[in-house]
């Protein structure tokens, strides 16, 4: 019996390691919910602990965005997330172009469409509302 369990455990471990194909279900679920007219481009997986200070959004990445393209930025949260995922985009002069969090109303949008008219490299930042601990994914798609 012991031998069988060990063999099964080894086979299972080997299977997981050799497949190398484990796709995070949070990402694939988020991708399928971006809308029928959206075409997947890339995703950002964000996992953050509670922030010490809330000066800036903590997860940062660069991405080239192109003129005459309409992008959709979709934010999805894991069930155990303490805060909602928020997004901010700045251009190369550090000017904020968009935010999924409206500071005036406190409203957080689960997706933002962006009609890009200026090609360039933009800084994309994510965090969880109020610097909370959280786990989520940001998916970038094109809208046809």
């Amino acid at each position: 019996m012991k031998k069988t369990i060990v063999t099964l455990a080894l086979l299972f471990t080997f299977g997981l390691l050799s497949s190398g194909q484990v796709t995070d279900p949070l990402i694939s679920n988020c991708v399928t919910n971006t809308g029928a007219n959206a075409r997947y481009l890339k995703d950002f997986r964000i996992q953050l602990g509670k922030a010490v200070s809330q000066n800036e959004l903590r997860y940062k990445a660069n991405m080239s965005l192109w003129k005459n393209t309409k992008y959709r930025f979709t934010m999805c949260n894991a069930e155990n997330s303490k805060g909602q995922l928020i997004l901010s985009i700045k251009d190369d002069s550090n000017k904020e172009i968009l935010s999924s969090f409206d500071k005036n109303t406190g409203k957080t949008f689960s997706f933002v469409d962006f009609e890009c008219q200026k090609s360039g490299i933009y800084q994309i930042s994510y965090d969880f509302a109020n610097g909370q601990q959280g786990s989520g994914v940001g998916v970038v798609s094109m809208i046809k």
Partner: protein
Amino acid sequence: MKGRVFLLVIIMFIGFSCRNSKSKTSEFVFPQSDSVPVSEAEKLSPEAIADISKNISSPVEIANLLQTLQVPFSQSYLAGSIDANRQSTNFNKALKLGILGADLGYLNMYEKTGSSLDVLSSIRKIAEDIKVGQFFDFESIKRLSKNKSNLDSLLFISIDSYNKIDNYLRGNDRGQLSALMIIGVWIEGQYLATQVVNQYPDKILADRIGEQKIILNDLLLLISPYCNHDSEFTSLCKDMLDIKDKYRDIRITYTQGNPVSVEKDGGLTIKQTETSVVTMSEDQLNAIIEITKNIRDKLILNN
């Protein structure tokens, strides 16, 4: 040898200085470089390299633009001459993996999924040859291609497979292959755009080609650490510098404006009023079309 070192120094200077430029002007220019030591370029962190490789635009975006412009699909743009069984070096294999990946993106976007099976087989063969086949979800992509079921899932799995390969290569001291794959993707996307604009002249597409100036330095930065690696890399670095040279006098300027936001269907829509404007003559565009074709054709024939 002296020539190679000189080439490497030039590329590193150019690439690194771009990364550190904070131009406040309203025109994008290749930065002048005269003060960054070569060793600094070699110290690019893995995070910086990952950032660059993620930042390079997807060929799917070019294919999307072509569809928006109602450009018909053409098999003739594809790198049909690539024989996966005749790739002798890892350099060739990684580069071809990128080129075929761009072709796969083009085929997927046009939902020519039946034709994509040959490309998929070549990708699998090459991926297995360089020991990254386990990251390419061939069966799922094949199934989705055959069923024509869900284009978005197909795009996701295809791009995700390439991202996994890229992450794995960079994380396992095989960054040179990752760089080649990315260069391959870009060159094929650029080839596609330039061939189409040659056949169907269009201002929006021509502008997109001109705007590639914005990311050219990042591409150079990615391969610069390997320009001295061997003769294949040295030749590719020279090709990329030749492309960059054709872009030197193309101007990208910006007009100012504030974004306009509208709430719609539970989401937020932001319309940018700030614009980028490309100034490129017909001769400049033709020079880019020509050099892209020459380099790309040389790369796919170099089995």
